C-alpha cells in the first residue's frame, strides 16, 4: 500500500481545485459534513437540554406536590344513599 503515491493530486492547491470543479465538489462534501454533524449534534444537544429540563421538573415536583402524585388513580365505588 503506498498511501502517498496513490493520492491523485500533486499539490494542495490542485487538491482544492478538483480539476476546475472545486465549487461543486466542495459544496457536496460541505453539505455532507453539515448534514451529518447537524443530525448527530442536534440530538446530543437536545438530550442535554431535555435532561436539564426533566431534572428541573423532578425537583419542582418533589418540592411542590410529592404527596399528591401518589393519590392519582384512586377510585371508590359505592351505593348511592337514598336508593329504593
Amino acid at each position, binding site marked *: 500500500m503506498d498511501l502517498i503515491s496513490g493520492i491523485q493530486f500533486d499539490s494542495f492547491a490542485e487538491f482544492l481545485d478538483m480539476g476546475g470543479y472545486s465549487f461543486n465538489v466542495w459544496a457536496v462534501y460541505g453539505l455532507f459534513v453539515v448534514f451529518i454533524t447537524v443530525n448527530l449534534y442536534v440530538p446530543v444537544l437536545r438530550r442535554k437540554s431535555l435532561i436539564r429540563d426533566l431534572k428541573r421538573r423532578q425537583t419542582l415536583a418533589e418540592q411542590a406536590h410529592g404527596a399528591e402524585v401518589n393519590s*392519582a388513580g*384512586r*377510585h371508590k*365505588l*359505592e351505593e*348511592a344513599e*337514598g*336508593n329504593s
Partner: protein
Amino acid sequence: MTDTSFQHTPDNSPLFEVCNLRCERDERLLFSALSFAINPGSALQIAGSNGSGKTTLLRIICGLNDGFEGQIRWRGFDRSEQSEAFAADLLYLGHRVGVNKVLSPLENLRWSAGLQVKVSEAELMKALSDVGLRGFEESPCYTLSAGQQQRVSLARLRLSPATLWVLDEPFTTLDVDAVARLEQTLADHAEKGGAVIVTTHHKLELPKLQRLTLG
C-alpha cells in the same frame, strides 16, 4: 315497551362489565384496577373532580378510545367480539351534542335516531315535543340556544331501542325543568330494564343508583 324488549344475557353474567381497567394519559395515571358491573335496571353515576378521567372512562366504555388496559365485557362476552351487537344496543351522548347546526331538530333527529332504529315521522315529532321543542322543530339549529340544542340530542333518548345509555354531563345548560324531566327519563329507562351510565357534578336522585368516584 315492556321489560322483554331488552335482550337477555346468557348465564346471568352482568349486562356490562369492566375488569381491571387501567388508563394513563400523558403518563398521568387516571385510574387502575378499576372494576365494576352494571345490570339491567340499574344506574351508575361517575363522579370525580375536574380532570379525574370521567369523560375518558365513558369514551373507553363506548369504544371510542382504546388507550387502556383491561377487559370490557358485554353480556358476558368480550366487547370486541360483539362490537356490532354492542353498537346496536348502545346510546352515547358526549360533551358535543351531535346536532348539526344547519339542519332543523327534526332533520337531525331523523338521521341520528334513524341510524339505530326505524322511526316514523309522528314518533320524531312526539319525541321533540316531549323534550320541549314544540314550535322549534323546523328552525335551523343555529338559532337555538345552548340548552335547546342539548334538548335536541336528548330527544334521541326517547326513540332509541338501546339498552345501555352512556351520557356525559347531560345536565349542563339545561334549566331546572328540563333537569327534572331528564332525571325522570333515566329512572323510567332503568325501570324498563335498561341501564344508564352517567357523569355529572350534580346530585342525582335515581332508584338503584351506584356511584363511582374517580380521582
